[in-house]
């Protein structure tokens, strides 16, 4: 399934096909030289979108993707190389490989499959690393692959040229495969996996909290991107006919990365823009490289003019347009509106089924950061149908406690359980799947995604994504943010951003939304970390009304941390007070107000 409006995808598919076919027709009309340039362009573009599928969606730059291009080229080359040729040039090949001789298309298919398997293995290892460390590890991958290709002489002819591959890549073949690759990349970007991955790129912690297992999505995109790279490699092998390991090393890595980055790596539009820009500049500069005559003035030949040109373009792009020439949106997303949600509540009131009362229990929780004890031996129970307030001075451990309950932090001591399920060591995305949703003290939205997508991710990533669209839209309606559905999250005001966050937490807890919609309710818990921070009185009251409706009518449990004591006093059934990491009081609001320990903690000794 895809997560963007159908009109976006249709527009982009039509655009891709029309562009590629027009370009091919024009090049055919212009003659062999243009055909050659366009074929290489198509093959490069396949590689660029291949890199973009991983780097663009995950935000992790990869230097290692040409390894897969190389593997694709060698595997497919070995398969199509005529048997006699193999006997002459590669006498030490294993027999089964020496005898193998397949057609062009089966060779491509096999190369893609072999490369995908290899990528899966590499990806499992690479996935343990984060951010910049992962980027450098991909550099290592490039060096390792290059080393293996050079060393494995019996199969690859080492650093010598691998030649005799039939030249079967025609312009039309390149065009068709390029269209396929572009479509695959475009669809992946807006697939469930692609959307989750982009959410992880925008905010890894928030993505985990709404049920996204980022590592899994990264692995999927890694393998898909490797498969596309293999396709590009197989095509270039059968275009050139002869190549050496150098073709798949740093020089071409930088060239292709430059295309990806100059255009903008998070979109297919960007990949195309970058590939066109760099190809044009390279073709123009190449004419000047050998020296030229300008108005009678003889200019000397400058070696590497193209590299300097590309380098300067990259610098320009980074200084002026760090997100690339095409920015963060696909072209069609700029022209056509995003998702719309009807603001009218579709929820109908009806009989509420009894609530399964399994509470969440944190027992003897202690959290140490080095020598600092942030939370000391605190036990807490969050019941459904109840609003529990958690208050205390700054630094008293409220958020740390919340983080332990929601899986963001693993407690140093103590346990977190819900019924028979032990959630002490559970990852945030697992906790989210046990019916516990949360918001954050510092708003964590997926900035470059729309409000609709922000909420949809939560719905898609919990409870197997059942009826995700319904749950998403109900949550958006419940929080009254329908009018923003198609806007980017980072364009909203602070108060509205808070609402989006809560809507996302709601959608992530499908049962609550199910209560609201289908009135078939089960217990569920919502953690709100300073939801009213930065809101004015009016907004706070509005929020309070919404929260009371959710708990009163729908029976869900809320754990709320806030400094607004008026809000806490009016809203909460029970209040727990922390000071210096320990519990100092617990009880009904009126008792807490009179408690001498609480007064002392807040006001000091009198």
């Amino acid at each position, binding site marked *: 399934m895809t997560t963007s409006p159908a009109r976006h995808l249709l527009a982009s598919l039509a655009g891709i096909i029309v562009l590629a076919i027009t370009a091919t027709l024009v090049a055919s009309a212009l003659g062999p030289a243009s055909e050659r340039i366009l074929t290489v362009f198509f093959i490069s573009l396949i590689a660029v979108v291949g890199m973009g599928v991983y780097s663009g969606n995950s935000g992790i730059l990869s230097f290692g993707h040409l390894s897969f291009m190389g593997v694709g080229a060698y595997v497919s080359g070995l398969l199509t190389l005529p048997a006699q040729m193999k006997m002459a040039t590669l006498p030490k090949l294993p027999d089964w490989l020496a005898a193998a001789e397949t057609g062009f298309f089966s060779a491509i298919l096999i190369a893609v499959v072999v490369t995908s398997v290899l990528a899966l293995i590499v990806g499992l290892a690479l996935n343990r690393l984060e951010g910049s460390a992962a980027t450098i590890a991909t550099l290592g991958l490039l060096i390792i692959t290059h080393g293996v290709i*050079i*060393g494995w002489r019996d199969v690859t002819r080492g650093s010598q040229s691998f030649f005799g591959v039939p030249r079967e890549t025609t312009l039309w073949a390149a065009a068709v495969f390029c269209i396929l690759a572009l479509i695959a990349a475009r669809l992946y970007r807006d697939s469930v996996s692609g959307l989750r991955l982009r959410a992880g790129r925008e905010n890894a912690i928030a993505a985990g909290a709404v049920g996204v297992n980022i590592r899994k999505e990264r692995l999927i995109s890694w393998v898909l991107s490797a498969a596309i790279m293999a396709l590009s490699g197989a095509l270039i092998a059968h275009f050139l006919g002869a190549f050496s390991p150098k073709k798949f090393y740093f020089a071409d890595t930088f060239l292709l990365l430059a295309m990806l980055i100059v255009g903008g790596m998070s979109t297919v539009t960007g990949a195309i823009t970058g590939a066109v820009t760099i190809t044009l500049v390279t073709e123009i500069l190449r004419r000047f490289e050998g020296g030229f005559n300008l108005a009678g003035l003889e200019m000397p030949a400058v070696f*590497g003019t193209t*590299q300097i040109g590309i*380098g300067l373009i990259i610098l320009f792009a980074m200084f002026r347009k*760090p997100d690339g020439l095409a920015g963060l949106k696909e072209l069609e997303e700029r022209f056509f509106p995003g998702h719309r949600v009807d603001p009218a509540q579709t929820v109908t009131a009806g009989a509420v089924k009894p609530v399964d009362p399994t509470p969440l229990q944190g027992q003897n929780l202690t959290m140490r950061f080095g020598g600092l004890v942030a939370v000391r031996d605190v036990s807490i129970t969050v019941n459904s149908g109840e609003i529990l307030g958690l208050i205390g001075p700054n630094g008293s451990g409220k958020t740390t406690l919340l983080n332990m309950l929601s899986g963001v932090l693993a407690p140093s001591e103590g346990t977190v359980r819900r019924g028979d399920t032990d959630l002490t060591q559970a990852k945030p995305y697992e906790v989210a799947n046990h019916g516990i949703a949360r918001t954050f003290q510092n708003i964590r939205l997926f900035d470059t995604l729309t409000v609709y997508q922000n909420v949809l991710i939560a719905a898609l990533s919990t409870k197997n994504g059942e009826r995700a669209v319904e749950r998403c839209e109900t949550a958006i309606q419940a929080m009254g943010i329908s009018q923003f559905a198609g806007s980017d999250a980072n364009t909203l005001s602070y108060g509205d951003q808070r609402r989006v966050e809560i809507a996302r937490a709601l959608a992530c807890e499908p049962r609550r939304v199910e209560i609201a919609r289908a009135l078939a309710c089960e217990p569920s818990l919502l953690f709100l970390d300073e939801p009213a921070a930065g809101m004015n009185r009016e907004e706070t009251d509005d929020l309070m009304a919404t929260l009371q409706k959710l708990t009163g009518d729908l029976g869900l449990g809320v754990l709320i941390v806030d400094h607004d004591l008026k809000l806490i006093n009016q809203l909460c059934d029970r209040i727990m007070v922390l000071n210096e990491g320990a519990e100092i009081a617990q009880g009904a609001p009126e008792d807490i107000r009179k408690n001498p320990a609480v007064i002392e903690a807040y006001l000091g000794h009198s």
Partner: protein
Amino acid sequence: MDIFLQQTVNALALGGTYALLALGLAVVFSIMGLINFAHGELMTIAGYVLMYCGIAGVSFVVAVPLALMASVIAAVLMERIAFRPVRNGSGATMLVTSFAVAMILQVLFQNLISTRSQPVLLPAMLSDSVHIAGMVIGVNKLAAIVATIVMLVFLDWFMKHQKTGIAMRAAAEDFAVARLMGIRANTVIAGAFALSGLLAGVAAVLWVSQRASVDPLMGFMPVLKAFIAAILGGLGSLRGAVAGGFLLGFIEIYLSAFLPPEMQEFREPIGLGIVVLVLLFRPNGLIPSATLKAEKV
């Protein structure tokens, strides 16, 4: 046993060079999150200064400080011209900027100096060797080890007792708070680049003194290795960079010494394979950076 000891000395010399390079990368990374691809070009610049000094007949004792000065100045200029405009960009933005800088510098070296490898005149003393405990050790190796130790001691002192060094450590922990405490961002970042330039310069002198030649791509491979050493040690951690540099040096030298001849072609992939194995068990490196866990939720 003799061979083993001999190779250990070699490993210390190579690992020390990697450690210095990785440290230079780590100093900058820990403060501004930039993976500086152009670090190798700082090395190359220092190498060319040594070469020109040799041609001009300047004594090596004078040439070395000049080379170090050149790489320090180049590093500071690089920051001022290329990296300041993207300072607040993402890690990927800065990395890509640095790789464009590296590419442009490489082409400039090729055009303005030579595409080929150029010989560097070194004092004859460096190619001598001394006998210690039954081992024959090249003076250049010994000098590399001594220089590495001196630099590490200096850096430790600088980071612990110098105002700029302490400011850099503070900035590495939390740049925003450090600035609120009155530390000037420009000073700290320029200082970090100067320091990384100095480390690259020392590494270049050591590198050139083993090989007596310099070419436009001289800095590329060693800095690539230093990147790998830096993640092996723990990206952003200074002690990790040193540990990773030495470990990588040991892995490479022992493999080249003790791997059977038919496997030698796969030396590099095997060496990096070992690094990957270590990372599988310690994904945050040997000595993880302290700031890794500190993200506020």
